[in-house]
């Protein structure tokens, strides 16, 4: 294994030059992604295809939050609220709750827009706050949204309160209902497969967008703000607007994933949009490597699949001791918390750090000193 690894490493520069090798590699990746649901189903069972689908949803969320936290350096602890906004919008516009049944192509953009508006509404007054205040305000915002979702069933029933919304329309595209098993060319595609391809397409699209953004004028402005806000303003960057843009972009991705979640799951309740969920997404970014696309994707995959894998520990206990001594579901959050602390202490740049972040998270007194003042006058 190591030998293969080494020889690959040595030959990498040549391989990279060889067009055919590059094309072959991409084809291989594409094939692997296309076959993933079939392989997963055969090897681990249908429930794991569902887990893969959720991993894709979390990738979307993590990529969205990564724009805010990883690029622009703003710690948003209420991110899940945008997911909730997207999910509820889908649920309300495509379920018997109001008797509305709008098509998915109409709802998703609306959800993205609404989430972006919420993001801007939250960001506009708060983005001039220093980092830790921003963290706590966004946390408060997340809780407010949660409280409203839970209580807006009276006097007028909008969200249906703690019970949430049921019987949400499945997503259907070009007349194909993704909730129903489909046959193409003699191959059977089950519900979870169909959603897999939809989520994968959207994830690839968003990855593409993130790649384009990070090397653009806007992407550079985000990083500049993260590096030194005063200097960024001195370069003519309207720091507030550019930060708002990051917030809005992040929220948009959150809104889209929320809509997808509602359509896939078929029911939603306020309890899907609690602080812990926000923290899990932050955790994915920190674990994988803030600001690094592939690190963040890895973080999202790890943190969705590991807890599921942990369940086997429960089955193992059942088999060994005849009962579950420690329920893996109970220490999932504990492990997340430990991961946050340990990652920051031992490997602050994440498993796959972005080159830039890696340099940056090594302590430098210079950075710390810069963080003491802002663009704005203290005597205003």
């Amino acid at each position, binding site marked *: 294994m190591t030998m293969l690894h080494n020889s690959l490493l040595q030959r990498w520069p040549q391989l990279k030059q060889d067009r055919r090798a590059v094309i072959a590699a991409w084809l291989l990746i594409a094939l692997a992604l296309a076959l993933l649901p079939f392989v997963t189903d055969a090897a681990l069972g249908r429930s794991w295809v569902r887990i893969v689908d959720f991993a894709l949803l979390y990738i979307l969320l993590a990529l969205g939050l990564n724009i805010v936290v990883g690029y622009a350096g703003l710690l948003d602890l209420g991110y899940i609220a945008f997911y909730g906004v997207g999910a509820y919008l889908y649920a309300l516009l495509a379920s018997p709750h109001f008797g509305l049944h709008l098509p998915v192509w109409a709802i998703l953009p609306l959800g993205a827009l609404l989430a972006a508006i919420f993001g801007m509404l939250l960001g506009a007054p708060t983005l001039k706050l220093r980092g830790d205040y921003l963290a706590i305000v966004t946390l408060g915002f997340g809780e407010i949204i949660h409280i409203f979702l839970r209580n807006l069933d009276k006097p007028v029933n909008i969200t249906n309160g703690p019970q949430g919304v049921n019987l949400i329309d499945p997503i259907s595209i070009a007349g194909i209902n993704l909730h129903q098993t489909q046959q193409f060319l003699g191959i059977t595609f089950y519900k979870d497969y169909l959603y897999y391809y939809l989520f994968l397409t959207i994830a690839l699209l968003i990855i593409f*967008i993130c790649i*384009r*953004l990070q090397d*653009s*004028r*806007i*992407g*550079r*402005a985000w*990083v*500049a703000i993260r*590096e*030194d806000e*005063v*200097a*960024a*303003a*001195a*370069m*003519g*960057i*309207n*720091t507030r607007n550019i930060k708002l*843009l990051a917030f809005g*972009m992040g929220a948009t991705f959150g809104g889209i994933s929320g809509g997808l979640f509602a359509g896939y799951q078929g029911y939603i309740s306020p309890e899907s949009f609690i602080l812990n969920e926000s923290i899990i997404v932050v955790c994915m970014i920190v674990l994988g490597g803030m600001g690094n696309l592939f690190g963040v994707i890895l973080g999202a995959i790890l943190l969705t699949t590991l807890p599921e894998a942990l369940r086997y520990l429960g089955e193992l206990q059942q088999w060994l001791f005849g009962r579950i001594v420690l329920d893996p579901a109970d220490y999932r959050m504990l492990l997340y918390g430990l991961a946050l602390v340990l990652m920051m202490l031992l490997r602050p740049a994440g498993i796959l750090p972005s080159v*830039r972040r890696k*340099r*940056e998270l090594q302590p*430098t007194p*210079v*950075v710390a*000193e*810069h963080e003491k003042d802002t*663009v*704005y*006058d203290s*005597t*205003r």
Partner: protein
Amino acid sequence: MTNPLLSIKNVSKHFGGLAALSDVSLTIERGAIFGLIGPNGAGKTTLFNVLTGLYHASQGEVTLDGISLLGKPPHAIVNAGLARTFQNIRLFANMTALENVMVGRHARTRTGIFGAIVQHAAARDEERAIESRAHALLDYVGLGSAANQLARHLPYGDQRRLEIARALATDPRLLALDEPAAGMNPSETRALTPLLQKIRNDGVTLLLIEHDMPLVMTVCDRIAVLDYGKNVAEGTPAEIQHNPTVIEAYLGGTMA
């Protein structure tokens, strides 16, 4: 004296009860290299911060080419044509030298989210223009070979030059330099004089805070002296060197 580039009229700035600037007035002519000197704590950097929108003046008036700057946010002032460097270098430490200068082009470019994602022809052209301009500016300040180095790995003198290149990238009409020679070794300081003259000859007016007297006296056309937040003298280098108030307040006879 008909149409100065920068005009500062009766600017005052108080921090609590403390007057950091009181009633400062200056005019800077187009094409000048204008020196601002004075002892530490005299209010020079405070004046810079007022000019560039980091502080809000308690009273007074500042106009750049007839356009009022006071009350404008920092980015709008850059757009109006006033760029600056910082006394305690504030580069984007973890970006490369090239990226630093490319950020400087932000004010003069347009591509937004949409253009960045779809990369239509205009967006691609602009990105290419940003990059080539940044390379040109690095060459201009003599950092062409350091383009891909991280800003924070550059030697001190190069960091100062990079800050100048980055500020020039905003296409300023007036460039305000806050102690560009601070921390430089003698040979780096000597190399600064021709660079500043080159910038001026290329049409950028310079406002310079500096403690290095030989540099100030050689390079500046006019000099103003701040002391305790007040403008105590103004004139040509020769006049300043012989002004008794200045010698007493600041130079302390060391200028011989």
